């Protein structure tokens, strides 16, 4: 419902610009919070140092926006880069490997609200947001099978585990979403 409220405020401002009526939302940022049900307004000033519309612009034509937005996380320790293909298994491969592995430990690294929607039977929940290989309770001899929603977070957790010295690691390619399409047809998708 949030986009409804926000989209209609946007529509109102478009109409006001066309009609040149009222006080347009220029130089003001309207903040809407549905949970608190309040509106706040903060002032937005024209920045004289703006690289586009400031006094000495450096952006004088359209740029490469993909590169501009691909900002690395400064100061963050990125996990060692690994050959992801060597650790990723398709849903069927993942299931077969797990079924034949007596040391298999299945780990779900999604968040609790996602776990509550659906999860693979026998898994334990270790959300990536608070993931810590040392405190995870996982043992060095465990054969760890990781999964998340689409595969990305599982691989991040896998890199952390690898850096912490864990050896037997697998990640579910495509996550629980692909698992629902290819292995467990009763699993809901979200």
């Amino acid at each position, binding site marked *: *419902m*949030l*986009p*409804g*409220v*926000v*989209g*209609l*405020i*946007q*529509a109102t*401002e*478009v*109409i006001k*610009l*066309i*009609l*040149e*009526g*009222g006080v*347009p*939302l*220029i*130089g*003001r*940022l*309207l*903040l*809407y*919070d*549905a*949970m608190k049900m309040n509106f706040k307004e903060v002032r*937005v*000033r*024209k*920045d004289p140092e*703006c*690289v*586009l*519309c*400031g006094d000495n612009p450096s*952006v004088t*034509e*359209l*740029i*490469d*926006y*993909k590169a*501009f*937005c*691909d*900002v*690395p*996380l*400064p100061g*963050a320790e990125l996990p060692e880069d690994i050959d992801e293909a060597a650790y990723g298994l398709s849903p069927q491969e993942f299931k077969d490997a797990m079924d034949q592995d007596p040391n298999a430990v299945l780990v779900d690294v999604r968040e609790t609200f996602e776990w509550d929607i659906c999860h693979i039977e026998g898994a334990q929940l270790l959300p990536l947001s608070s993931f810590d290989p040392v405190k995870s309770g996982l043992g060095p001899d465990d054969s760890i099978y990781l999964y998340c929603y689409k595969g990305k977070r599982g691989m991040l957790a896998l890199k952390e585990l690898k850096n912490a010295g864990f050896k037997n690691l697998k990640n579910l390619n495509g996550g629980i979403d692909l698992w629902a399409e290819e292995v467990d047809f009763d699993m809901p998708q*979200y």
Partner: protein
Amino acid sequence: MSLNNEEINRYSRHLTLPEVGMAGQLELKEARVLMIGAGGLGSPLGMYLGAVGVGKIGLVDFDVVDHTNLHRQIAHTTSDEGRPKVESLRDTILAGNPNIEVVIHDTRLERENVLELFSHYDIIADGSDNFETRYLVNDAAYFSKKPLVSASIFRFQGQITIFSPETGGPCYRCLYSEPPPAALVPS
């Protein structure tokens, strides 16, 4: 430009408002608004702009309607699943008001096509869902000297403002000089 009898009847509650009136209704009919995004924000935005009689509405989006969109992107119905969002939204808008023109652009907005696209419109309304598009739209609106009505949402919070450097107002880069690191953006 003028209104036919059906339009006069349709917009009669506008025509009797001093803030709109016949002159205002004709301004709405002459207006050309380009909407970036035909999803959560674009649904109510497009439906209302169409209903009130904005003469030409452009829709840019390359996505198709997914089952998980339906609970919030209210212009799209269950039977629209799999259709391009711009087509689905266009049909909803025209069902509400067949007097207007809706032009669809079933394409990704790129630096190669954005300026040409903007040249056919007077006002840009951004309801896109990523930073690349937001900075592209901002810069293109600035170079095209067109006001940009910008709205964005995250979970239960929304932000709305108008960027209008040509009238002395700020642009998106004045507000946020850089996007967040990609690793922090929920995608």
